């Protein structure tokens, strides 16, 4: 009997070792890399990062992308999930089609959208065929940062709304039907039922989706590089360039520590703001 007490620990052990080995250890290494110089401890890497040409823009665009893309995705996914709830026949078909982008790597998604927005791309051919423009327009150049930003938003929304959708659909299925039926009996309108019953019960799933998507949005990289090159710098991209092109692991690590810091902050913020009601009451 006594040995059974250890079985759960034994069972989680492999995954804990795996995480320690492949996440915690590299994390500590990256932290050390960012604060260690040729002569002991230093903040030099962070200073160089902050003084860099692309630093301010990278922070600006990363935060801006997260602030624009994440709410858009959550609202869209919520609408899609509610629509799915209203379909009885062929629901799975819609779900599968909507989650297709999940199966595509982000770089491939970036390249697909590049094929649309590039000078000889589908968008220009389409507009030309309609007679709306005479000459191909440039959408993705350093001279049109707003359009470039919109293109990245479009690609990101297309690519990653599905993950939010999947989480919300699962969350919706967990809500017992009785609550809604009871509200209906008491004469609540569909709108009221959504606000007073569905949404509060969906909070835990929403929290998960928001945390997941925000962290991923802060790490956005391949889509941006494919569409904008260096014209739209983002933090993860800068970390990549410092490591790969400039071969300076210290500054690259400083960037990744910064991304980590912002991610942790955002997660804590969500956990605090979206605390379930009963806990607050307690």
């Amino acid at each position, binding site marked *: 009997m006594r040995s059974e007490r250890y079985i759960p620990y034994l069972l989680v052990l492999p995954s804990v070792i795996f995480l320690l080995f492949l996440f915690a250890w590299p994390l500590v290494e990256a932290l050390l890399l960012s604060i260690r110089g040729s002569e002991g401890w230093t903040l030099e890497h962070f200073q160089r990062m902050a003084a860099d*040409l692309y630093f301010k823009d990278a922070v600006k665009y990363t935060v801006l992308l997260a602030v624009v893309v994440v709410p858009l995705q959550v609202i869209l996914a919520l609408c899609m999930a509610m629509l799915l709830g209203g379909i009885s026949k062929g629901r799975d078909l819609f779900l599968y089609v909507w989650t297709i982008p999940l199966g595509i790597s982000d770089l491939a998604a970036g390249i697909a959208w590049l094929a649309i927005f590039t000078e000889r791309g589908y968008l220009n051919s389409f507009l030309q065929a309609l007679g709306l423009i005479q000459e191909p327009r440039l959408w*993705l150049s350093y*001279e049109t940062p707003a359009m470039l930003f919109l293109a990245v938003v479009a690609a990101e929304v297309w690519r990653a709304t599905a993950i939010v959708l999947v989480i919300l659909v699962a969350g919706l299925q967990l809500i017992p039907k009785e609550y809604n039926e009871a509200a209906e009996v008491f004469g609540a309108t569909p709108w009221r039922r959504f606000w007073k019953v569905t949404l509060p019960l969906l909070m835990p799933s929403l929290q998960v989706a928001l945390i997941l998507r925000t962290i991923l949005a802060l790490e956005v990289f391949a889509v941006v*590089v494919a569409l904008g*090159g*260096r014209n739209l710098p983002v933090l993860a991209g800068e970390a990549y360039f410092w490591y790969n*092109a400039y*071969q300076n692991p210290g500054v690259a690590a400083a960037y990744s520590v910064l991304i980590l810091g912002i991610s942790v902050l955002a997660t804590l913020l969500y956990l605090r703001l979206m605390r379930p009601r009963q806990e607050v009451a307690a």
Partner: protein
Amino acid sequence: MRKQWIGFSLMGAVLAALAAVFAQQPSVLFVSTQFTPIEEAQRMRQVILKDFSGRVEFIPEDNAPFTSRILSEARAGRVNVSLVGGLHGDFPPLIAAGAMDTVDDVMAQLKDRKFSPTFANLGKMGTGNQYYIPWMQATYIMVAHKQALQYLPAGANLNTLTYSQLKEWGANIQRATGKRLLGFPAGPRGLMHRFTQGYLYPSYTKSAVTKFRSDEAQRMWSEFKGLWQFVNPQSTTYDFMQEPLLSGEVWVAWDHIARLRDGLNQKPNDFVAFPAPIGPYGRGFMPVLAGLGIPKNAPNRAGAVALIEYLTRPEVQITTLVENGFFPVIQAKLPDNLPQGTRMAADAIARQAQSNVALPSLLPVGLGARGGEYNKVFQDTFARIVLRGEDIRRVLDSEAANLRRVMNDTKAPCWSPDPASEGPCPVN
């Protein structure tokens, strides 16, 4: 039962014999910074090395892991690599650490190869001994769509084009077509920094480092900014110029020949290849020379020597050109069945190198892993002056500080075309 035992022992004997045969012919571990793209590596293994009599293990690696591998093997005293292939600039850190053997004996064996004397001399790395045998070369040239030729400024000749004529050409094209059709590979993986380091700076200042912030450099940047008005703004997303040339987004482009190759080979009748433009000091250009060297205490030096002999044979040099786009370093007659595009590129390269205004400059030498930050200085200078329109003098002064730091950290002396220096190359 008994029969089975006999069978097993027979099989064991055969295996042992096979192992002995293979052990007699140890393979050559050949590590190279060239041919890292998977297709190029495959063509190296399956086509270029096919007829070599010995066994070769060809392993391409990026610059930084390559250098640390050779150095740590030398330091540990357990050398596994028998042959090293790299660009001229990959060798100094290895030689400085005493990890490379001299190859004068190999050079003496290869007398009949007729290496270009400039290249053979570069392989001595400024010493009395040969440290690498020239392997293959490449460079950067210009390619234009034939439609663009009608807009060449009056009196301009493609082979003696100047930077101001290039600007005028771009202006003429824009006036006629309404489009900006000059192009440069200024994307995140593009080689624009090689253009500023090896073409623009030498042509206007006969330097890349010492005169980085000179008045001549200031004039150069303001002229280049003027030229940029006629450059397709999508250039900041171009990594390889062959694609925008083929799609017609760009009519006149500069790039590495390996990154123009598909364009020239797919539509040889649509394009012309020609040398880079000429500036006040001549035609700055950057030959890219790769060499083959042997580490000290290499486990299979004889095999490495045989492989060098093989790779520098005229027919193998031609195969290397056809398969992977690097040009011969020996006097080899190009066969008639060479693809037309490759022939055009070879022509342009010859004209670029052999004219009386030629001003060859080397890829950075002695910067090791800091080469990336050296490039960043030029990339950032370009982005700040040309793309963001910052004040030229202020940018040059502030980036000169970054350049100085790279030079002082690495203590790299000047390389051509900058005049030789005692100690780290100064940024005046």
